[in-house]
């Protein structure tokens, strides 16, 4: 069965969706992600969807489910890279993506995850701007 790869990047999981999702692929991703969060103890999930050309109410619900499930497992979810046409269509369709953080691109999404999980504070403590004398 076709699967969407999930990459581990430090404390986060990274998913890049390169194809339009059909139901079984989306449901498979939902399960795989929750299992991976549990196995790796990931603190955040970043989903990159710039190659996705449509998100209907079913896909919107899957994205919402992923975020809810991950949150219960202790991980925040950020969706990044949404095409403008997809964003407009989602709003007109009436989908709100509750509980899902969003950012414009991967870089901003990573910053958001670091901020939401408090890991950016930890980084600052570990790497002080000015080396102690």
């Amino acid at each position, binding site marked *: 069965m076709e699967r969407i790869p999930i990459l581990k990047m430090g404390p986060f999981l990274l998913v890049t969706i390169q194809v339009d999702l059909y139901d*079984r692929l989306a449901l498979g991703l939902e399960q795989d992600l929750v299992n991976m969060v549990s196995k790796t103890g990931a603190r955040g999930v970043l989903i990159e969807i710039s190659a996705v050309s449509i998100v209907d109410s079913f896909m919107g619900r899957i994205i919402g489910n992923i975020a809810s499930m991950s949150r219960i497992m202790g991980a925040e979810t950020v969706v990044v890279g949404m095409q403008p*046409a997809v964003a407009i269509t989602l709003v007109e*369709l*009436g989908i709100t993506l509750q509980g899902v953080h969003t950012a414009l691109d991967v870089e901003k999404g990573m910053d958001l995850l670091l901020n939401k999980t408090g890991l950016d504070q930890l980084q600052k403590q570990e790497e002080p701007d000015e080396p102690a004398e």
Partner: protein
Amino acid sequence: MSLPSNETIRIVREQDVVLLLSRVREYSAQVSLQPLNQTRLITAASEMARNMLRYANGGRATIEALSKNARTGVKITFLDEGPGIPDIQQAMTSGFSTGNGLGLGLPGARRLVNEFDIQSKPGKGTCVTIIQWQDGR
């Protein structure tokens, strides 16, 4: 390459929806729908095709390239022989769902396209027609 003036696709499995959407994209490109209107039409088509699978055990979708008085557009007709919708007005209300959907499919799809028509006879089936015009919106 030009497409036939219309094409009917049977929707009985989820893979059929993928095929339908890619054909809708080709028709939309042929009549030069704006990319945003293409996305709106394809998303609406996806909602309708899913509805047919979820509530009516499938059906047929016919895609047509329209050309009327120098106007071009794409029309998609969804026809099923499912249980029908007893109260269309209620079904068109946001948030109402008899399945475990979000209740956004019908009212959402209506907002996305230029023209939307729904006919239903309980026990006989449902017919939904959606049109996106090249010069619409």
